[in-house]
């Protein structure tokens, strides 16, 4: 399997062109393997869930909370679904032609890329100004939660911290998607100079061959990584035990019981 594709420029020097499309199939394979492995583990493992009577007691103790807890505001949900639509458009327009489904994809691709870029800019501003910016990030403070969650997954009864607003896996996923999305967006915006758009005069000589090669490789690596990441995301979104989170991304709220069952009220504090 090749990782990179090289060509020779007019001076007969080797130039990096893009990643090998073998990596697309590798990413697809990795995504599907993860999906199967995780699903198998969830079926056969003894992972620990909070008992119903434990949640009953918490719910009785916190009857002061509203029956519906807002998890995602309308702007946050709109951002998510616009981003999802643009992401699917980008992946389909990028990889279907490579898979042999030929259609005029370029304009769709860069338009979807601009939609994704705009939605990310909106999200950064919205999250910085109106949301709890740090609630989605991971850091050293999350080590105890990581340890507790791992032990629970292995079937142990652990009193350690539960997730705040976002489960640890959710935050790690967000971190991965931030890195890959920013790589593909930044590289993609420069690559738009090489195709006809109303925004730039087409100029493939903006960078040197080597810099363009790195730009294309970055874009390709980010793209194939997103294939695996999106498979994982869709898998979790449709899992029955995670459906309450998916539903909250549509409706905006979760029930008081779900809030108490899955979150740590001390880390995701509700105003009474």
């Amino acid at each position: 399997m090749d990782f990179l594709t090289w060509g020779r420029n007019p001076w007969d020097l080797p130039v990096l062109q893009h990643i090998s499309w073998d990596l697309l199939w590798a990413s697809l394979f990795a995504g599907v393997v993860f999906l199967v492995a995780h699903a198998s583990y969830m079926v056969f493992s003894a992972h620990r869930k909070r008992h119903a009577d434990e949640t009953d007691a918490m719910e009785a103790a916190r009857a002061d909370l509203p029956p519906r807890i807002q998890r995602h505001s309308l702007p946050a949900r709109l951002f998510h679904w616009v981003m999802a639509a643009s992401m699917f458009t980008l992946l389909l327009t990028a990889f279907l032609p490579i898979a042999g489904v030929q259609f005029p994809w370029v304009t769709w691709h860069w338009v979807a890329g601009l939609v994704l870029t705009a939605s990310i800019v909106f999200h950064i501003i919205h999250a910085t100004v109106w949301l709890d910016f740090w609630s989605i990030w991971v850091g050293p403070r999350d080590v105890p939660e990581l340890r507790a969650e791992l032990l629970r997954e292995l079937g142990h009864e652990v009193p350690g911290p539960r997730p705040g607003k976002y489960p640890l896996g959710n935050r790690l996923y967000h971190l991965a998607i931030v890195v890959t999305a920013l790589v593909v967006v930044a590289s993609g915006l420069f690559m738009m100079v090489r195709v006809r758009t109303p925004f730039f005069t087409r100029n493939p000589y903006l960078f040197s061959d080597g810099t363009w090669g790195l730009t294309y490789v970055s874009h390709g690596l980010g793209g194939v990584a997103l294939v695996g990441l999106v498979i994982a995301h869709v898998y979790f979104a449709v899992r029955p035990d995670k459906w309450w989170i998916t539903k909250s991304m549509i409706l905006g709220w979760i029930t008081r019981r779900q809030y108490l069952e899955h979150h740590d009220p001390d880390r995701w504090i509700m105003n009474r």
Partner: protein
Amino acid sequence: MAVIRDVMPAFELFQPTSIEDAQAVLSRYGAGAWVLAGGLDSLDWLKDRIRRPQAVVDLGGIAALKGIRERDGGLEIGAMATLTEVVRHPAVRERYAILLEAAEVAASPQIRNQGTIGGNVSQDTRCWYYRAGWPCYRAGGNICYADTPEAINREHAILGADRCVAVNPSDTAPALVVLDAQMVIRTAGGGERIVNAEDYFVGPAIDITRMTVLEPGDLLTAIRLPATWAGAQFYFEKIRDRQVWDFALVSIASAMRTSGGTIDRIRIAVNGVAARPLRLAAVEALVEGRPRNESTAVVAANLAIEGAQPLRFNAYKVPLMRNLVKRAIRGVEATTWTS
């Protein structure tokens, strides 16, 4: 222009005598096989060492690919029929004169004696950046050297460009499009596929590395001309830098049926302006039912060039195409040339 080195890279030469044998070799070598018809485009590629096939399959010995015969009221032209044979065939002259005109202006007499109609429609683009072996989009790379601020792109596309701005060089292609010709393809799996001439050619938006729908292992075996446009009023014109042995800057072909000075039905196609011959369906829809006169021609010509995006050196193709559309609809004598 590439330097012709004259010493071709080594390859295995196969000279099958049947389509089946040819396809067996093509299947065995896949993308490493090269189909040789008249050899006029092929030898450039091979001598320049830009293409280095493992195997060359010479179709010259396959009798089934040759000749021109009557079929269902129309004609079937073998893919290996030479352009000279096409030009001299009485049925082509009598019923499909537009194909005669198009074939007759291709290259030079010597080349027409050797070049085949299958090769003429399937030949690769003449973009010199691409033919020099540079790693452009069409060659599998990620750049178009012909569409840069400094590029020499006088002969390149004004319509339908998508990253690549190369144009289709075939003279017979637009004539076949207006005749509603059907391309008979023997597929790699041994089946037969009939493709309308209009759909035989592929633009860069769909597949940037190919000019036609032919996949590795596919073989164009014949071109069928239905009776639909036989004996219609035809118009063909090829504009080139010199009057012999040159590719078209822009060419136009039209087939028309009129009654009482009104255009009943029309097919019109241009080449040399995009990576595939363009059938001007919007122009056809506009002019059908209208009188065949100067005002119809002017409106049609202006519609034809809508969306044209000239490059640095080929803006002249816009008025050229507009005037050719006018001439095709109105006729040469009555048309006023406008810049």
